[in-house]
């Protein structure tokens, strides 16, 4: 695998839609979100026409992932409240839920945990759109799902190497694929026409100091990732914890009291999400 050309790899990942293992609803969704002119109305109809998807979306928006539990009763209301980009991200999140559960046990929990932690940090920092931080957290590891789908055996080997050598999965991916889930995820986020900030967060959540378009958001997801792993919640492909990037930590400038509040709120929300089986 080490010899695979990066362009070839990218082309294969970008063609993920052609894989027979991609669920029909995800296939249709990708068709919708790749359309540059897609309107809120079309997205809303897409969800409403699929009762299972409707249930999942409403469960998510009424969960601790977002700040407003128990108040949203219709897809229209959710779409208006959250806006196009958040809804697109949310749809992608719920549509890969089953894939995540099948491909890497614990990755969904890790992603949910990061979504909540990122929102909590964003709220602490007074960001205007903490729901966007939720989506950043929910989708930051989407590249792992894409790599596993396209290269299941190679990815398994990378995970085994990480496990045996006590390496990060990030490092093991680089050794096996010449790239990482961060880049793979950001290629696809671009293809799916997600906002540049989300593309940046996915690309730089391991190196948040390099982000030009979303330094704060990348730092938030970077720290959320560390806190969720450090707490021992979920599984993201390895058993190593990365050290926080000092620049990002300083930029976020959280006090110990802030950190305590965030961990406390995270704990409560995680308890509630135990029941969030989509």
């Amino acid at each position, binding site marked *: 695998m080490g010899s695979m050309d990066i362009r070839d790899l990218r082309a294969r990942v970008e063609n993920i839609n052609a894989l027979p293992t991609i669920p029909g609803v995800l296939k249709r969704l990708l068709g919708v979100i790749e359309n540059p002119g897609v309107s809120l109305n079309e997205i809303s109809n897409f969800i409403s026409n699929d009762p299972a998807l409707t249930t999942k979306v409403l469960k998510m928006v009424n969960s601790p992932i977002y700040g407003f539990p*128990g108040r949203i009763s219709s897809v229209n209301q959710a779409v208006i409240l959250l806006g196009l980009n958040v809804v697109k991200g949310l749809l992608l999140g719920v549509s890969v839920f089953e894939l995540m559960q099948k491909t890497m046990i614990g990755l969904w929990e890790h992603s949910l945990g990061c979504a909540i932690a990122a929102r909590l940090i964003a709220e602490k920092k007074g960001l205007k759109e903490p729901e966007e931080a939720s989506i950043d957290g929910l989708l930051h590891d989407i590249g792992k799902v894409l790599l596993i789908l396209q290269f299941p055996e190679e990815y398994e080997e990378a995970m085994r190497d990480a496990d045996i050598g006590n390496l990060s999965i990030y490092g093991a991916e680089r050794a096996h694929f010449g790239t990482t889930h961060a880049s793979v995820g950001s290629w696809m986020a671009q293809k799916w026409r997600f906002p540049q900030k989300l593309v940046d967060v996915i690309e730089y959540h391991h190196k948040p100091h390099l982000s030009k378009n979303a330094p704060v958001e990348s730092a938030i997801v970077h720290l959320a990732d560390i806190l969720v792993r*450090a707490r021992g919640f979920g599984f993201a492909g390895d058993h190593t914890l990365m*050290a*926080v990037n000092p620049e990002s930590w300083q930029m976020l400038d959280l006090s110990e009291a802030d950190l305590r509040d965030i961990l406390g709120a995270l*704990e*409560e929300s995680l308890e509630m999400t135990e029941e969030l089986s989509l």
Partner: protein
Amino acid sequence: MPKIVPDKLEPGMKLLKPVKNRSGMVLLGEGTELTAELIERVRDMDADSISIQGISPPSTPKEEVLSALDRRFKSIEEEPYMGVIKRVLKEHIEGLYG
């Protein structure tokens, strides 16, 4: 898990989720503090379980959780700020066990 059987309810506990009747009507809202009378009403409804705030006696022993924490931080504890994160996290975990 924040859910407990109605028999274990005690006055002063707060509802994590609303208690609803079979047709889905909310009888007691989220956050309601339970009194002896309310608990009797809840028991009469023969619900399977009730979600309560804040009671989550963690199922894993504290020592086990803390030693897993030590293992996770072992190789990076000396990195900038990781000591602070670990200390706050440790205090947080100890707090969960009361």
